[in-house]
């Protein structure tokens, strides 16, 4: 069962999740919906890669989790940024800006 993953998307998944959580605590499904909606359906996060990533980020200390009640009163796990997570978000945003600027300059040059 091969799962071809786009290198870029894998690297940026953390960034996207952190950014999403900037707005407040959210559960996994909510994060998926948000990214999907805000990117106008361009970015679709696969559930298979989301949850492992969420748990890894939790182990790394960027986000923390809590059980809470979802909209339909079911048990759901809510994630939110930690202090370390805020710093990591700033870091990743900076990196992304630098990366995309670099790619842009290369594309402009090739013109």
């Amino acid at each position, binding site marked *: *069962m091969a*799962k071809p993953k786009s290198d870029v998307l894998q690297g940026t998944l953390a960034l996207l999740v952190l950014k999403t959580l900037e707005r407040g605590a959210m*559960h*996994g*499904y909510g994060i*998926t919906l948000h990214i999907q909606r805000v990117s106008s359906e361009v970015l679709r996060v*696969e*559930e*298979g890669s989301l*949850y*492992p990533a*969420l*748990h*890894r980020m*939790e*182990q*790394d*200390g960027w986000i923390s989790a809590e059980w809470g009640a*979802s*909209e*339909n009163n*079911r*048990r*759901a*796990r809510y994630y939110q940024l930690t202090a370390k997570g805020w710093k990591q978000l700033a870091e990743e945003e900076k990196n992304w800006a630098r990366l995309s600027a670099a790619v842009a300059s290369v594309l402009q040059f090739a013109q």
Partner: protein
Amino acid sequence: MSLLSRLAGLLKIHRLERDVEDELRAHLEMRTRDNLAAGMSPEEARYDAKRRFGNSTLVKEDTRAMDIVGWIETTGQNLRYAARMLRRTPGFTLVAILTLALGIGANVAIFTVVHAVLLDPLPFPHPEELVRVYDDLRTSNTHDVGMSVPELWDMRDKSGVFQDICVIFPTDGNITGGDHPERVEALGTNANYFTMLGVRAELGRTYVPADALPGFSEPVVISDAYWRRAFGADPKVLGTKIRLDGDLYTVAGVMPPGFRHPGRTLDADVDLWATTGFAAPPFPAPVVRAVRLLPGVMGRLKPGLTVSQAQAQLDNFVAQLTRQFPDEYPAAAGWSIRLVPTQEDVVGNVRTELFVLFAAVGFVLLIVCVNLANLLLARSASRQREMAIRLAVGAGRGRLIVQLLTESVLLVAISGAAALLTVFTLKNSLLRLAPADLPRLNDVSLSPGVLLFAFFISILTGLLFGLAPALQTARADQTTALREGSRGAGSSKHQLQFSRFLVASEIALSLVLLIGAGLLFRSFWQLLEVRPGFDPHHVTTAKIWLAVPNDPQNDPYFTIEKRAAFHQEILRRISALPGVEQAAIGSPPSAPMDGKPRQSPFLIEGRASNLEHIPVAETASVTPAYFSVLKTALIAGRFFTDDDNAKGQQVVLIDETLAHRYWPNSDSDALGQRLQMAAGRRSEMAASPLFTIVGVVGNIKSDGFDAASAPHIYRAVYQAPPYGAVVYLRTTADPGLLGEAVRGEVQHVDPTIPVFDVRTMDFIVSAFLAERRFALELLGIFAGVALLLASIGIYGVMTYTFSRRTNEIGIRIAMGAQRSDILRLAVGEGTMTVALGVVAGLAGAAVMTRFLRSLLFGVKATDPLTYAAIAGLLTAVTLLACLVPAHRATRVDPLIALRHD
């Protein structure tokens, strides 16, 4: 931080699993709800939500994997699964564990011996500095001729090679003063013996510099064993006076229980150490360089000096001394000094045997591994489906391989533990099987080094037999296995080829072992065929020791006449004992295969002496009946008579070897001729009297069946009465009772003389052969086990092969094939494998048996007869193992076979 929480995750793994499930389920439900709201039907909504998760099991696992330390959990799973799998096939598991335990146990057992005897350094500080110092006379090829006292002093003071050097003089000792005299194993040394070795006493003290006198000093040191035996472990033993050889000594110290003198003794472990400078009575004083009276010397090299460096330096020093003292060191004699590291010296020639046994037992383990690999392969065929499903569900190939290896490792772990337990509990019984004179036998134990070896070899074994089947089983191409209604027990052609290869290697290994055992067996047989030159049956021996007091004035047996009279009286009395047909007395070197021979250079009168090569003979003194007691033939002339005493002409008897060498035409030519011998320990012969040859006797193999025949010269006891003597009795009486009777007679004559070592000649001869026999027995057992395993291996593989081809055989029979055709087909299958194995085995044996050469006697390492016979035997056995399943294959009912899946 994360590692800690991941470790903690392992502890609440069940809750973790449920949490992850809950989390993912919540996600699923939310999406389903949204889908429904978007207008999908309930089934569609649910299906779409599920589909987005893809392989939900995998997602669950991946997610949970983030929360724990993955590999620990995996290992735990693997172990539990492996245990379950093993329990499911108890027959296989039991067989596997038993054979593995056998293989590993045998290896560990042999290794404990190898470790203690060969690898473990001697328990002294800087044991690599300790060496034995031997004097040799190269031109006559005589070794260990002894050292003189001035020479010792030169070694100590002027050679520049030793930081310490000491004499080792093993001797019998006579302890009197109690109810009866007791013989002890004594060791005379210089006062620096204990400090040189670097050991201290457990009680009291060892020697101090003040104890270094020219003669014997009063303090003696006793061993722990002797302390317990003679003094009942009395803590107040220090200061007790004991009378040794007529002189009074004081017990100054007791050695710790583990201490052993690092060298050979006369008979048993040393009971008592006494110190002397060897420069005063009873030794000749003043000291003379020409008298080589010191039988053994041990030294400690200067720090940092290697043995070869020391040897080179010593060679120069020897050359210097030869120039300085041409009379005492005639250039013609080729005197040289040889250093042997004490560790090597203690071990002797047991090394080769131990290595051979170690290799053999390693082979057995290899064969066990191969057998198990085969078994696992066959078993794995039935697990193809399981593997295929697991691969399909998403397990990585690596994970499956690790899983299968875990099963092997678990098997090995159980077997290894069982093996260790067995070796530990059986250690003492096993040690009793070993020849009693195996050096350092008491050091054999389950030391940390041995445990490490056991662990290491278990892991290696597990990997060895587990890897190949694991790799084979977890192959990616599993489509055939998954097909419904397929031949579920199917295995690829590769697997079968590999199986056959394994069996062939098993056969090859077994063949090498069997040939090795066969060669040793033939050597032993040849050895037994050697005629010893005497008849050991119905001969009992006992030893006597006439004490040597320090002051010759106190020695009642100082003169030749007195000693001769003593021996004569003893002989008269014991000849009269009931049950004794004949009796004789001889000096200790006269006892065949029991003790160190005494070599003397000699010269035949009238023969121009070739100074380059002075002949040497083994000498002993014997009473007239000696040869009759041993039933050695008289070839020419006469035996000794009672008239050959101090008053008569000095006579000798020579053996056939000597006679043939110098009088090749006829033995009687020797009669009446005269020869000179170096009397006593003098190296010059000029002062030696002339002895007349009065008889020629048959050769006695005094050094053992496999030693070359050395020439012997015999003197008459009444002309050369020894201090230590061996009594020979031709009798059918019980040795124990007879020994008591002899003791009674001897102590009637002189109550202070001990009688000890009462043994039959048969026992002595068999003890001499014991070492060889032991190696042969062990190797034979290993080879037998190997053969059994190889047969089982090939039987198993053949059975399996034919069961696979049942379908095909059914068709053939239905088409009209006869039973003989099927048989031929079946046997043909096996023959290829067997042939391959045999050829490889023969080649391997030709290479490996080279290492056996030093153990062989009368048989070449590539003896064609042995090779052919063993190869034939193995082929027959293995073909038989093929035949049984083949026969069963022919009994197949075609109808059943065709339906067989």
